[in-house]
């Protein structure tokens, strides 16, 4: 993919911004591509509908904001209501089954995933929901290699948490691959 624009949205504290940084950092540091990550800085970053934009490209990126994302992730109803209309026609709209009712009709490929349910059932800790989501995005889009994300995780988190994150990433990737077709 020459250039891909993504928005991860959810509630402040769910880790969508962290997931965005991890994805962009994996692309830049371990895959030699260009990426830009930006995020909302208002009070919504502490709750409410927060979001982070990512652009990954093989060429130089000048305009740093994401207007029409090819991939939009919404992890809460509020973020879905706020952001679902910005998606690029035909884009990938990923939502979480537990938190989001996708009532509106949008010109997008909807993918309603049981991210929270799976994480709670298989791992039992909602803290890795964002990594599972990231896995699903990567599983569907093949934007970066799973190893690149794991390398970033190894650098960022204590080793005792690594296994939990690896598992969450794998769960997400498998879920994503199933739905990719």
């Amino acid at each position, binding site marked *: 993919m020459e250039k891909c624009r993504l928005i991860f949205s959810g509630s402040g504290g769910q880790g969508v911004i962290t997931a965005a940084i991890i994805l962009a950092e994996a692309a*830049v540091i371990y895959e030699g591509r260009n990426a830009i*990550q*930006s995020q909302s*800085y208002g009070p919504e970053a502490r709750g409410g509908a927060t979001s982070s934009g990512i652009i990954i490209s093989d060429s130089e990126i*000048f305009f*740093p904001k994401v207007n029409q994302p090819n991939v939009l992730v919404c992890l809460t109803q509020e973020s879905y209501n706020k952001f679902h209309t910005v998606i690029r026609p035909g884009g990938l709209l990923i939502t979480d089954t537990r938190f989001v009712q996708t009532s509106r009709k949008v010109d997008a490929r909807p993918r309603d995933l049981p991210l929270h349910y799976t994480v709670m059932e298989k791992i039992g800790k909602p803290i890795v929901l964002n990594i599972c989501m990231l896995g699903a995005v990567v599983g569907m889009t093949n934007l970066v290699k799973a190893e690149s994300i794991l390398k970033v995780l190894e650098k960022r988190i204590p080793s005792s948490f690594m296994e939990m994150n690896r598992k969450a990433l794998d769960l997400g990737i498998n879920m994503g691959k199933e739905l990719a077709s």
Partner: protein
Amino acid sequence: MNEKVRFVQGNEACVEAAIYAGLDFFAGYPITPSTEIAEHLSSRLPGKGGTFIQMEDEIASMCAIIGASLTGNKVMTATSGPGFSLMQESLGYAIMAEIPCVIVNVQRGGPSTGLPTSVSQGDVGQALWGTHGDHAIIALSASNHQDVFAMTIEAFNLAETYRTPVILLLDEVVGHMREKLIIPEDGEIPLVQRLRTSVKGGVDYHPYLPREDGRLPMSDFGGEHRYNVTGLIHDMWGFPSGNPAVAHGLLRHLVDKIWNNVHQIARYKEYYLDDASTVLISYGSSARSALHLVQNRRQRGERLGLLELQTLWPFPASIVRDRCASAKHVVVVEMNMGQIFKAVKMAVNDPGKVFLANRIDGVFITPTDIRNILRLIRGKGV
């Protein structure tokens, strides 16, 4: 993994560059959107043998770096609009007493506390005329992280070269967004070190007697030489003077040392200017949108070019005049009510061909915003 390739915020790029440049002392008061500069320096600087102090406010921060610089340190503070306003009085002191220092202003919406988390370039004029009295200042700007790194080092180098405060005008978009930064090897970018006097201790030292090349060698305050430092008009010993000839000479010196070197201080980038019929002039993050549009329209054969100014003050008027000479339209792209636009109008031969493409609502200007202005100028409507 290559440790030299990093994925960081613009504020972190500024921190890395300051450390590369040999920053010894930082005093500041954290304020959005510059907070990450203080945050990262608080952990990075002590480890490098430097000093980090969080002061009670921006007035004290500015005073602290002035004192630290006088004693021989490379110094910096970082703030945003409200803090930059508080620094203006002692900024004037640093200009008058010719004390090298770097002030980073990561701009947000103003006036007053304005729009704390939104982007703006509204402090460009304040950087030039925020403090009172006739004076000159150097202000730099950058649009991407590699340039933030380069311009931060330039700020330290120019501060030492001209014994002056240098203001680095970043903005919320560049400061907060993350992108790639390649940290150069040691020695790859030349660093200007403090010019110290060769006058021996106990021998009469004139702190404000310029050499033939206009530079004034310094002596670390509290060290070998005793001398006076004041915000009053002063003679070559640094003592207050009401002598008209001394006052005239000092003011001329303060202004001339900057404006006589406008070409040495000018930093800029040119894109497709050779045959451009429309020249965009921009700086900081808005130059990214301008460049996006230029690259895009060039693919369709439109003769659009960009002059990205990295030195804003002293304004490189003759360079702007020259690059715009054969352009039909000149469009200044900035996120304020036309602070550089006015300087461009004064610089070019035909001010009637200069237009403004701006945004002042805290929203980052888009290539489409600029494109719409271009259509209007060309009589095509929006």
